[in-house]
């Protein structure tokens, strides 16, 4: 009997998993995550044991040792997750209906339950871009006292989770998530939405807010606000926003979203040492920049 499991909606989009026995998936364990109201049709992911066949797929690139991305020749993408542990099967995620439906084939049924986080996060990021709703952002985020969100972008090791932990101790900000946000384009501008996929700090709280400021995380011996040329800012955005690289039209729209983003929200690099006054300095700077 096929099992159907639903996640809470992320930025209004729920994810429904159809799991064919003997597969058994484990959802993300996020007690503080309850999702948003559903406003869009769900993303459906069908999981089943089956062949991991990449015939006809065009390899795009490898992310060693974890996965390989492909273009499927029909405007969609596919991801092959390599077996880095003998107990975990090779898997293949394929697009069935862009933005709506995806299949995941497992080379064999593992004895242990499989975490569904990886496939869920990938399918969501793909669908968000394919729906032209927005892009998945690799960054932490928190809501400032003004009610606007600060989106703090950075690659792994940049200090996103450290920043989120710092902000968690404050009463005047609300931390959304320390690693992944949905950045969407709404009628009134960009919004930042928390997701159930945290980083090393394990923070995944409910919430969303209009985007107030984009912060790039830097390092310096003394606190400094750096204005960076647009070209450098865009380069950083390209490495921290999940663009749909498998489809020319979708990629063009994604680049257009970045163009709108830098035109509508301040982007600033804050570089700072870690210390007792750091979080206050960051909040003060972001509030000042956002209010300008």
């Amino acid at each position: 009997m096929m099992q159907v499991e639903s996640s809470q909606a992320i930025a209004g989009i729920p994810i429904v998993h159809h799991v064919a026995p003997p597969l058994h998936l484990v959802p993300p364990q996020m007690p503080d995550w309850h999702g948003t109201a559903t406003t869009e049709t769900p993303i459906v992911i069908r999981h089943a044991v089956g062949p991991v066949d990449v015939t006809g797929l065009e390899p795009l690139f490898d992310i060693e040792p974890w996965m390989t991305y492909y273009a499927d020749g029909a405007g969609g993408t596919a991801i092959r997750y390599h077996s880095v542990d003998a107990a975990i099967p090779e898997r293949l995620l394929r697009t069935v209906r862009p933005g709506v439906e995806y299949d995941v084939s497992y080379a064999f049924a593992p004895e242990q339950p499989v975490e569904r986080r990886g496939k869920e996060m990938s399918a969501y990021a793909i669908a968000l871009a394919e729906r032209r709703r927005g892009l998945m952002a690799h960054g932490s985020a928190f809501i400032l006292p003004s009610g606007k969100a600060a989106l703090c972008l950075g690659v792994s090791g940049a200090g996103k989770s450290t920043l989120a932990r710092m902000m968690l101790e404050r009463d005047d900000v609300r931390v959304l998530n320390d690693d992944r946000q949905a950045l969407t384009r709404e009628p009134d501008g960009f919004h930042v939405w928390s997701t159930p996929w945290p980083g090393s700090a394990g923070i995944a709280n409910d919430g969303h807010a209009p985007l107030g400021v984009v912060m790039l995380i830097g390092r310096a011996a003394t606190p400094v606000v750096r204005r960076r040329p647009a070209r450098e800012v865009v380069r950083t955005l390209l490495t921290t926003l999940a663009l749909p690289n498998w489809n020319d039209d979708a990629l063009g729209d994604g680049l257009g979203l970045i163009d709108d983003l830098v035109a509508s929200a301040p982007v600033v690099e804050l570089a700072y040492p870690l210390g007792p006054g750091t979080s206050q300095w960051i909040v003060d700077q972001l509030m000042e920049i956002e209010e300008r």
Partner: protein
Amino acid sequence: MSTEGTLYVRAPGFVARRVAGETLLVQTSARSLQPIQRSTDLLVLNATAEQLWNLLASPVSLEGMAQYLIQDFEVDPATARADAESFVVSMVDLGAVSPLNEVRES
């Protein structure tokens, strides 16, 4: 390179888009859903390169590109030919532009 009469055209897999006041040329396979693992190579096209890229939406020869530069950028023929050839060579090396016969064969 031997270019006399050769027609060139954009190869698939590249997107040019104006972002933050600059025209970026991005390869579709150069981006990742897991950007932590990737560095991004992107090209910024100047005004001349942007216009030549636009011309290359349809097959065009070096002579055709040079003629365009002569008319719209008011450069002398030798400079226009050299600029067009330099641009096409760099784009062919990148894989963003192909001689038309190669596009037809691929």
